[in-house]
Structures are given as C-alpha cells and as structure tokens.
C-alpha cells in the first residue's frame, strides 16, 4: 500500500491517562525540543549507528546490522540494565522500531473492542506528520476502526502548515506550554517558543485544542510575571480547553539535570491561586 514508516519507541495498549476512555498510545521516536526534565530522554534523538551502546552492553545483546541500517537487540540475553540508553550520545536508544501503517493498524485491531480511541505521543509526533496523514486516513477508512477517536499529544513546535495536514483527521490536540517567555523556554527546552504559541492559538481557533498543560518547574516558569502571561494567553482561548497543571517530577530525568527541584505544595498553591485570580480553572496532577 505504502512504503512510509515511522520510528516507534513504544506502544501502550491500555492507558487511562492519555485522553478520555481507555486508549492505545503510540509513542514516536525523536523530538525537536530537549527539555531538562524529560523523563524519557532516550526518545529525543535518532540512532546514527555509532556503536557506543553495542560496546557498552554488558551482555553483548546488541549488534549493528549494517546492511539494514539498524541495531539488532537480543531479547533473550538482555538484562534490562539500560546501560545502552544511558551511554547513547544521541539521546537515542537501540530499541525503537520502524513500523508501517499496516503494522500499527494490526496492533489496534487486537484491542479495538476495548478502546475509545488512540493517542499518538512522543517524542514529537508532528516530526512524522506525513506518516500521520497516512496512518489516520487508514484508521478513518477501516470499517472496524473508523469510530475511534484520534488524539495527538504534541509539543506544538512546528509550523502551522503541518497542522493543516492532519487537522480534519484528528479529534483533538493536547499541547504543552513549557513557558511563555522565549528566554525561559530556551532555558527549559533549549529552543525558543514562537511556533508553539502560534500553534496553541491556531489549534484553538480551529476548535481542536483539547488540553493545554503546564509543567511547573520551580525557579524557571513559576514566577509571577510568567504565570500572569500564561494566564493572559489562556484567557484568550476558548473556555472548553482543559487546563492541566503538572508537577515536575524528577523520576527518570538525566543525571546532569538532577539539581532541578520538584515544586513543593506551597509553590503549587501559589500558582493555583494565580490562576484562580485570573478565573481559570486548572486541574492539577
């Protein structure tokens, strides 16, 4: 049917936290931001077959397959020590797989009776927007799947033309706002945020913004000025957009960022109160 493939870092067949109902979640490899608090930093980069992990693996479970430009992973001998992921200079992993639309469809078919829909997440899914077009079109055409809702969990860091490609095929988007000020955004993610702010407003205008999330990182994005700016932005959006305040957690973050601190109850309450003053109802998790 088509030759397009996506780099898939994982699939969860039952998730109750990635949108309404029971959902299958597909995680795409590679991201165009580099957040300090990323819990899955091995999904940020793409593998360049450098072989560092192959050398580092204590059980010799990895081999480079030069002909097919991929790494072969022996699941029998692997002891799940994660050394390979930790040593990878590319923030990548030897485990993600290339999958076709057909591969993914057959994964969904297995659980179709149990789910409300699917959520694609990352990494950054929009980097593989062309694949998404084919994938979502296939779902919409498939008689047993077309009723499923399709949600996209994105960092929003792409040009508006990318959204247009999949807008009509998608039920809703869940976008993170990491910070309002470009400087703070750069500190947290390594990149500026103009595209993200545009995307948020664009998706909202199109009636497709489901959820906006703010991950609270003390000493970075919890300042009064910052929260006020975010509130102003939120107040311009339609009130139906679900607003979620997420406490940054240090679980799984990279060594060099362990000095980050999780927000304490006082800091959370402060931000909650700011939102309250701005008449914004947020859900904290």
């Amino acid at each position, binding site marked *: 049917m088509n030759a397009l493939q996506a780099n898939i870092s994982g699939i969860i*067949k*039952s998730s*109750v*936290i990635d949108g*309404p*109902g*029971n*959902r299958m979640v597909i995680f795409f490899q590679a991201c165009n931001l580099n957040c300090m608090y990323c819990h899955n930093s091995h999904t940020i980069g793409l593998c360049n077959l450098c072989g560092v992990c192959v050398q580092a693996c204590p059980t010799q479970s990895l081999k480079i397959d030069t002909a097919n430009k991929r790494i072969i992973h022996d699941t029998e001998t692997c002891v799940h020590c994660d050394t390979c992921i930790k040593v990878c200079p590319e923030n990548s992993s030897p485990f993600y797989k290339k999958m076709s639309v057909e591969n993914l469809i057959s994964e969904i078919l*297995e*659980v179709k*009776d*149990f*789910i*409300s829909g699917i959520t694609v997440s990352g990494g950054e899914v929009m980097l593989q927007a062309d694949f998404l077009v084919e994938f979502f079109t296939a779902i919409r055409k498939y008689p047993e799947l077309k009723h499923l809702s399709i949600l996209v969990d994105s960092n929003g860091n792409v040009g508006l033309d990318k959204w247009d490609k999949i807008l009509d095929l998608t039920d809703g988007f869940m976008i993170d706002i990491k910070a309002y000020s470009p400087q703070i955004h750069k500190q947290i993610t390594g990149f500026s945020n103009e595209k993200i702010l545009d995307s948020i407003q664009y998706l909202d205008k199109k009636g497709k913004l489901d959820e906006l999330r703010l991950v609270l990182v003390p000493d970075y994005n919890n300042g009064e000025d910052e929260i006020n700016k975010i509130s102003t932005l939120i107040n311009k959006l339609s009130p139906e957009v679900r607003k979620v305040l997420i406490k940054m957690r240090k679980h799984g973050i990279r060594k060099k960022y362990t000095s980050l601190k999780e927000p304490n109850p006082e800091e959370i309450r402060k931000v909650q109160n700011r939102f309250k003053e701005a008449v914004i109802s947020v859900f904290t998790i």
Partner: protein
Amino acid sequence: MEDIKNRVREVLTDGCLDYKQKKHNLAYIAESTQAYPKVSDEAMEALADKKICDLFEGSAPYRPRYILPDYKLALKKGIKYLELDPPTDFDEAINFLSILYSYVPSITGYSVYLGNIDQLLLPFVADLSEESIYKKLKLFWRYIDRTLPDAFVHINIGPEDNIIARAVLKVEREVKQVVPNLTLKYDTEKTSDALLNDAIKTVFEVAKPHIANHNMITTDFKGEYGVVSCYNSLPEGGGSHTLIRLNLKKITDQHSGNTDAFFAETLPKYCEMTLDIIEARIKYLVETVKYFETDFLAQEGIIKLENFSAMFGFYGLAECVNTLMKNEGHDFTYGHSEEANQLGHRIVEEMKQHVDARPLPYCEANNGRAFIHSQSGIDIDVEETAGARIPIGEEPDIYSHINAVAPHHHLINGGISDIFHFDDTVKRNPQAVLDIIKGAFKKGMRMFTFNIANSEFIRVTGYLVRRSDLKEFREEGSRYGSTSFAANSMDNKNVDKRIAKRVNSNERTASQY
C-alpha cells in the same frame, strides 16, 4: 456425645460470637449429629479429604442452599402465612419485603437474594420525588445491613436505567455498607451508558456493583434470573438445592499418569462422585425433609420445585493445569501461555459435558441437569485458586487476562467471576472502565468485577469486607457473619496484598465448632 457437649460449650462461651451467631452455630452442631445422605464410601472419603467440598452445607440438608423467591409474585398476591396483603404504595412495599426477607432460608441463615429491587419497587413510585425515594431507600438499606448482616446477601438492579436504580447507587455511595452485595445487569440495548457510568463511579467508592452480562446470562434461563451470593446466577422463583464443588487441584495432585489418563479416568470419576453427592443431598431435602411440601414459600408458590436445580462447582483450575503441564515436562502456566490456557479450557469443557450428561432428580429448572459454577473460593482454600481464575498476583495485563478467562464464561451457566484491579488514576476516567467492560462482554465474559487498589473495601473471594472491620474482628468479633470468614481468608492468603476474591460466610464459621 462428650464431643458434641464440648463443641456446644465452645460455641456458648466464645466471646467473638453474638447471640444470633451462637444460635446458628448450635444448629450446625445439631445437624451434624445426623448421618450424611447415603453416598458411596469413596465419596465420603473424597469429602473427608476435601477432594470434593460441600461448603459446610451440613450433613442433613433441611433447606435449599440458594433460594430466589419470586418477590414480584409475592408483592402481587400477598403472603397468607405472614398475613401480608399486597402492598399498595412504596412504604408498604418496602415493609412487605423487609418482613419477607427475614423468612427466606439459606445456609448462612440470611437470604442470599433480595430481588431485582428496582423492578420490584418501580410500580410503587407513583408521584414520589427523587428526594423522598432516596430517603426511603437509605433507611431500607440501613435495615438490610443491620438485620441481614451477611455479605452474601445480594440485591440486583437493571438492566433499564430508572429512578430506583440511580437512587440505589447513590445510597450505596453514601452509606458505604458491606451489605447488600450488588449486581447491575447490563444489557447492550437496554442499559444506558450513563447508568453504567454511575455504577462504575459507585465501584470507585464501595467496590460494588458487579456488572453482569445480561444479554448473555438471560439466554441460559427459561424465565427471570437473579445474581445471588457470590456470582451465582440462578432462576427466580427457584434456586439451587445445593452446591458441591470439585477441588481440581487435589484430584490432580493425586492423579498418577499423563494428561490423557486424567481426562479418561480421574476427571470423569470425580465428576460422577460430585454428582452422586449432589443427587443424594437433593433427595434428602426433597424426599426425606419434604421441604417443598412444608415450607410456606413453596406452598404459596413464591418458589416452585420446578424452578430449582443444583450446582456443580469447581475450583483450583489454575493449579490443575499447571500440575498437568509439569507432569508432561512443560513449563507452561495458566494465564500466561496459550497451551496452558487451552488445556484449562478443555478441562472446563469436559466437566461441562459430564455435568450435562448426568440426569438429576428435581432439577427441572435446567432440564434435569445441574448448573455448572466456577466457585469463587472460601477461606480454607489456601492452595487452590478460586474457580477458573488466574492466581492472585500472577494476573497478566488486562487484555491477556480477559482473553485467557473469557472462553470459559459461556459454558458456566451457574456463574463465574474474575476480578480485575485498576490503579487509582482510573477514577479520573470512568469512561476507560466502561470501554473495558464493553470489550470484555464482547469477548464473551459473563460477569465483570473490578477493584481499585487500596480501596476501603476489600474483596475477599466473592464478597466485601471493610478493612477496618477485619482488624476489629481479629480483636473483638464483628456484627457481620462474613467477617470471620474473611479474617480466615486474609490470614490464609495474601488477599489484602492484591485485594482478591469472594467467599461464603457463616457455614465455614459453624463448621469450626
């Protein structure tokens, strides 16, 4: 005689039992003075070493184990024996039922079935407001919990969405009682998503109702059915004379030979033996005690002998499969490998064939055959997993779990249960549970029960206890008969580690004396 005297004395002086519980236990001792209904020596031996278990029904059955009165008929005709006229309004209907409940016999002394309560009360709603219905039901619920303090007491609602069903769920969330146990009959056509959603939110609070696959269960019965005690589905206006269960683990442990020999010799032999015991007990109840000629429920047509059958139960399928696999040199375990699951399925199918091939007297409700029942376990089951369940703590992911157990469900017309555990986060997303329940029913599951980790209620084999009640019971005894059963269960198994199964109640307590 000396022995009886000592047993009686032990009951009389047990500070953990209240007056009613003592009376119940004394009756059990008195019953045990009678000779067991006549069965072969081999069958008596199997009962003694628990290859076959009669669930402490007693040696001289003088009442059926499960009675499901036709409450609808009773409300319509009134009851002469109790000098009750047909009720004319909501209050009278509740009062009528409250009185009748206390006269329905069972093994535990408390009725295992209180009716499809919304269907029973709807004709009496008239112009009552939602508020006043709620208030009346709340008092009714308090009455039930305080006077029928046994977690096997079971009430049903559904399948249609209605004001009573909604009020029941609201009361449940509010009063947070162990009793009554509750089942919602779910029908893909008749039950609204909103009602199912309300039920799911109620489970979040009080670990009930169970959700029954009404479309499926209803085809197994000629008339109406009820879900009673621990997931037993039985005909209304009738019930089950007895429930005898086959311990698949024990018979496999003692089986020498390969799997083929198990199917050719051991399994049929013990199925027949179980059915022999069932037959002897039915005859004793019907012919010697003449229960159906003498009890007012039967005399007044509230129950009818033709609506009765018996139950052939089994448990320990997981251990049976694993042992047979091991004996054949395989490392396949039940719930985790296709081969093991297939073998489990074959065992259930064969049992069902034996049960269906054996005519039994006074079992007209199921065309002269017993209902087969995947028995959800009791406190003494230390080594055996309930029914056809996957052992606690070994459950695979939810889809594999459902796929492993669902194929049994259509065969088990007497009721089967599996318990699924959800993380606390699902409370924010009840729709997710709704999706999974619908999927499970599509896959052919008969009953869906789930729990939230760390809930205040603990599901023991088939019923609930409050975490705090358990603790108290160990120290000073509990108002609930079933708590002592649960305490034993909790001590025997890590049930509060994973929250687990569902049990029967006082019969076991009585047998300890």
